[in-house]
């Protein structure tokens, strides 16, 4: 415990440094806003704002983006409750009971419940993160290129096995992301690869930001423009100090559910294919299953708000654990954070703890502070956010497009990248309409160069013998779990068919 407390205290002090504190506060506010706006979520906010962080040191940059991520988890509930439109996919489950409560005139109760549950879930996950990170980093120091590659295969396999999406389309999405990562100069021979139509712009490769901003910026707004046709009704939020105190006293009603969801959310968040969205949905399902009054879920049960909100905050921190310790992102947002770390010149993974402890512990320390600040801002600024939600999408959409264009230009200062981003955005939207998952492609373009380097180093060491991945115990374990995960959907489909056949036979 002593080995954790001292660096944690140093990290907390670092987070209180003026620049870091300022970035944290701004990040929390922007995150709340981003999360509250329908059509925007943490992944969009982080992708679009990443270019802005090139101005500051890496520690301040990660604190800022982590605060945006965190704030968005809090902010998603505001739109879910007052508009009935999830602020982000992570807040979908909050609509189920949040909207009925708002319609019953208890929007203030719903919003307070969401904020308090987010705080509790966030606190649980930050403590678990602090305890798990150093030993996991120590364990990961045993990894060589073979284990690194096997771990990435496992990360991709979790998308196939647990992502819940169409499998051939998921595999296609992963592979196309890996292919985009190969564009440019070969890392070993220096030869140009996939320079389409001999366009010079491809020589510097495809920056993952171009794909990320294209898909999560332009593509997402096109999607929202299509989905949000028609009027949206904003429910009035009235609150007073008396009702605030009365609502706060109801914490004990949902406290056990919140704690359980926080723990569950953290461990689900660690899985690469998971993240806050499945964590919140699973927690909602479990809270309903174990509730004494499951029929009240979907009609305004405050535990139905507390569970997903606690889980999504907890999962957001959990997803940072494999990112920092293993170099494997636990969610689409952390995939972008990982890409950012590479741009800042850092190598995510176990060596980060020894080579850049100020970065890691500064991030961990900032999470404690961000949790408190975001709770305060969330409760204090609810009337402001509700007012902002009345902003018409025809004002917000062009602003986001402009942010995407300049954000896509800034990294390489090339209009070629902006055109690519536009093409990715339009295609991402068209593919999404056909149920192609886009998150695996973003993960793949971030991990692609690392995966290729690890694979080629491993094969060089083994003189071309691919059995090396099965001869080393850790690598073999990862490959084995990956195979099981990849086969799980086939097994689930077979079991479903057997059950249906048995049911049909018993009905006859």
């Amino acid at each position: 415990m002593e080995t954790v407390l001292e660096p944690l205290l140093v990290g907390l002090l670092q987070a209180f440094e003026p620049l870091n504190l300022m970035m944290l506060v701004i990040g929390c506010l922007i995150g709340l806003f981003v999360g509250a706006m329908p059509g925007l979520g943490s992944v969009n906010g982080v992708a679009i704002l990443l270019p802005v962080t090139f101005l500051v040191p890496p520690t301040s940059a990660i604190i800022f983006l982590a605060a945006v991520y965190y704030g968005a988890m809090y902010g998603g509930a505001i739109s879910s409750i007052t508009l009935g439109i999830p602020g982000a996919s992570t807040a979908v489950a909050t609509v189920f009971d949040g909207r009925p409560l708002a319609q019953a005139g208890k929007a203030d109760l719903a919003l307070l419940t969401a904020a308090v549950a987010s705080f509790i879930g966030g606190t649980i996950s930050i403590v678990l993160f602090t305890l798990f990170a150093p030993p996991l980093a120590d364990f990961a120091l045993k990894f060589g290129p073979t284990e690194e590659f096997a771990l990435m295969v496992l990360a991709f396999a979790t998308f196939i096995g647990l992502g819940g999406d169409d499998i051939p389309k998921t595999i296609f999405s992963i592979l196309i992301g890996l292919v985009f990562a190969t564009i440019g100069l070969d890392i070993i021979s220096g030869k140009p690869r996939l320079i389409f139509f001999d366009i010079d712009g491809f020589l510097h490769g495809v920056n993952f930001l171009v794909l990320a901003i294209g898909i999560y910026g332009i593509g997402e707004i096109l999607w929202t423009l299509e989905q949000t046709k028609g009027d949206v009704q904003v429910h009035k939020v009235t609150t007073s100090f008396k009702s605030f105190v009365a609502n706060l006293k109801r914490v004990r009603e949902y406290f056990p559910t919140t704690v359980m969801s926080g723990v569950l959310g953290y461990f689900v968040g660690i899985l690469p294919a998971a993240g806050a969205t499945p964590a919140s949905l699973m927690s909602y399902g479990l809270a309903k299953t174990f509730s004494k009054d499951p029929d009240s879920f979907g009609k305004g049960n405050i535990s139905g708000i507390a569970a997903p909100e606690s889980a999504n905050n907890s999962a957001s921190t959990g997803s940072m654990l494999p990112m920092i310790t293993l170099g494997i992102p636990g969610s689409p947002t952390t995939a972008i954070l990982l890409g950012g770390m590479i741009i800042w010149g850092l190598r995510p993974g176990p060596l980060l703890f020894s080579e850049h402890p100020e970065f890691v512990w500064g991030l961990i320390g900032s999470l404690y502070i961000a949790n408190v600040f975001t709770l305060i801002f969330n409760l204090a600024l609810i009337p402001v956010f509700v007012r902002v939600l009345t902003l018409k999408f025809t004002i917000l959409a062009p602003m986001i497009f402009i942010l995407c264009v300049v954000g896509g230009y800034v990294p390489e200062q090339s209009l070629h990248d902006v055109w690519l981003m536009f093409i990715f955005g339009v295609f991402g939207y068209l593919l999404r309409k056909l149920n192609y998952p886009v998150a695996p492609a973003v993960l793949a373009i971030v991990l692609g160069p690392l995966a290729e380097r690890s694979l080629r180093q491993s094969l060089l060491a083994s003189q071309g013998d691919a059995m090396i991945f099965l001869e080393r115990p850790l690598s073999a374990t990862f490959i084995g779990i990956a195979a099981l995960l990849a086969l799980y959907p086939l097994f689930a489909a077979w079991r479903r068919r057997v059950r249906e056949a048995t049911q049909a036979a018993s009905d006859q």
Partner: protein
Amino acid sequence: MTVRAAELVMAVFMTICSLAIMYKSSDGLKIGWIPGSGPGSGAWPFWLSFGMFLSCLVIIYRWFRRHTPESNSTEPYIGNQESRIIGVTIAALFFLLLGAHIVGIYFSIVLFLLFYLKVLGGHGWGLTSFLSLATPTWLFFFFEAVLQKPLPKGYAEELFYPLYDVIYGKGGSVVTLMVLLGIPALGFVPPLLNWFRGRAAV
């Protein structure tokens, strides 16, 4: 076009793209094992795109067998109402980027916002004018003065020389700060006025 038709069109298109990537990966590059050196430079993209090709074949096969919801759906891929707004938005973005090459990003943003806010959004001239002028102004001072990352200006580069004198001249930092804080503050004036009017009425 129905979703079912779009599913096939997309799968066929991606199949062709996969084959093209396979060809390009092997163009002048080795896709096999080089003794003493390891996998060739083209190996990784070639075999990945081969995997893409196989995935597309599976998608097409499942389309024929109607195994997926998309391959069974006769719903319109993009509805008439939606296709108008999506199509116009994509076209507006296209011209925004094209304009960046010709008149530069700042003037292109002005034209884009004028079109989007007034024509597509139906907003009043007050809001449209304010945002169309304030947004590129704010971006100019933020990127040129603060980040020192110049954005493309096309053939309109010379028109910005007087502004460079402002930014990099005496008092440039003060002017920059005033613009960066002042423009967002101006945006809060109308809602504050409305709020005061509401309180006065009470």
